[in-house]
């Protein structure tokens, strides 16, 4: 199902929208020039995930020496604060059986989705933080800007 979210100019960087797709609620985020879409339901205990705070990776090699790296691409569930990468829906809360699932994520201006399907590897921030992908994965959806500059998500 194609769900129109908003016009691009009404969707500035840092903004987010919660849209309904049938019974499901989807959170759509714009971080700098990229769009992401995530099921508004935390895989842990069903909290409204997409209402959570966004933050970047905090990386510390020694106690007290912490830097933030990369764009704010982790959303923290408003209940228990478990965090998921917007692009892959992957959590990094402990050893998980599955590596990251491939997702068809792309932003194309005008026209259908572009051809190459990029495997989203472990984000650079997670690797810097020495973090392993965990078993919990939030459901993500492809999102793109259609020809009339509407942000659209495929549910």
């Amino acid at each position, binding site marked *: 199902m194609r769900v129109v979210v908003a016009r691009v100019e009404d969707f500035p960087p840092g903004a987010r929208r919660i849209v309904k797709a049938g019974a499901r609620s989807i959170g759509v985020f714009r971080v700098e020039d990229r769009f992401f879409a995530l099921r508004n339901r935390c895989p*842990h*205990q*069903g*909290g*409204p995930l997409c*209402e*959570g*705070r966004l933050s970047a990776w905090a990386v510390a090699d020694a106690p007290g020496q912490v830097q933030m790296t990369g764009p704010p691409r982790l959303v*923290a569930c*408003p*209940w*228990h*604060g478990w965090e998921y990468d917007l692009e892959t829906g992957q959590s990094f809360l402990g050893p998980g059986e599955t590596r990251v699932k491939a997702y068809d994520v792309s932003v194309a201006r005008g026209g259908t989705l572009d051809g190459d399907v990029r495997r989203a590897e472990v984000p650079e921030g997670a690797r810097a933080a020495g973090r392993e992908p965990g078993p919990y994965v939030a459901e993500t959806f492809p999102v793109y800007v259609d020809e009339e500059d509407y942000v659209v998500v495929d549910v």
Partner: protein
Amino acid sequence: MTRLATQTAPDEAASKAVTLVDCDIHPVMLPAETSRRLSARWRRHLERYGRRSPHITDTYPRPRNQGMRADAWPEGGVPGSDLALLQHQLLDEHDIDFGILLALHGSDGYDPPELMAELNRAVNDWLVEAWLDRDDRLRASLCVPHDQPALAVAEIERRASDGRFVQVLFPASAQEPLGARKYWPIYEAAAAHGLPVAIHTGGYYAHRGTGWPSFYLEEHAGYGTIMQLALTSLVCEGALAAIPDLKLVLTEGGAAWAAALRWRLDEAWSLLHDETPLLERPPSEYISEQVWFDTQPIEEPDDPAHFMDIIQQADLTDRLMFATDYPHWDFDSPTQTLPRGVPKELREKIFAGTACDLYGLPRTRDAG
């Protein structure tokens, strides 16, 4: 919105089985509500000097949404201060049949006795006016100035006749370990009125054991251990043995540690029982007979089977009760809390049966 039982004839009203009781909900009383219920003397005192007890976030700031569910903030209030939002997000959302209110309003022991007596009386009055009178699915815990036993017993005597107060509230840490004789008069009064004593994580911390933790994560993960200390004190000092009708409800302290604690105390007792003549039987028997546990924050072992092992090892089948801890950040949602492999009959006990028996709640209620 006011949700009172409609006065329809019983057979017409559609009634439903009670299937979900939430044993740990935190309403929050805003300062304006408190001061208008205090005497002039203590209202002026509060305005001038405030409370001497540090707020929990003064010692350990909660790094995650100030310790609250981010979505639980009402307009112009703090999480837990608004009945309508609580009804919407909790009682209605999860179709909760009965909810037990535990108002945490700063620990006793730091402020003048009379102020603590008035504060507790004000909270109890507010619970009646702002909550119990406005939603018949709610029950409440009786707040008492626990470090002033005489004043605490007076408050129990004053309120015990109102059946909607289903237990007396105690913190896990007070000025003395909870088994100290100082507190026995309160336990005796509660037991005499058929009220369990709920011991909720938090209270008066002096951290004299191993010194002060550095991080909230360290302190929060240690709450289960502090509850073990409280229960160890209550058993070894003989409070449970001396007051057989006393029932304890350990809230927001977890439960999985109960198995190891029972073995530890039983074996120590078998070697050292001549020191504690009040304990005629192994400590685990008193725990099995007189101690209930809330699930939250439920331990989530990687292997769900370990959860069922603990239920057997710690004899929790009829002693574990579900709680959400709304609106705190480590809120357990009723639908996802119990791991796979918990038999249906046990789920029903955990979600409602055990609480109904303990608190004398009806097994059916009208689906108003």
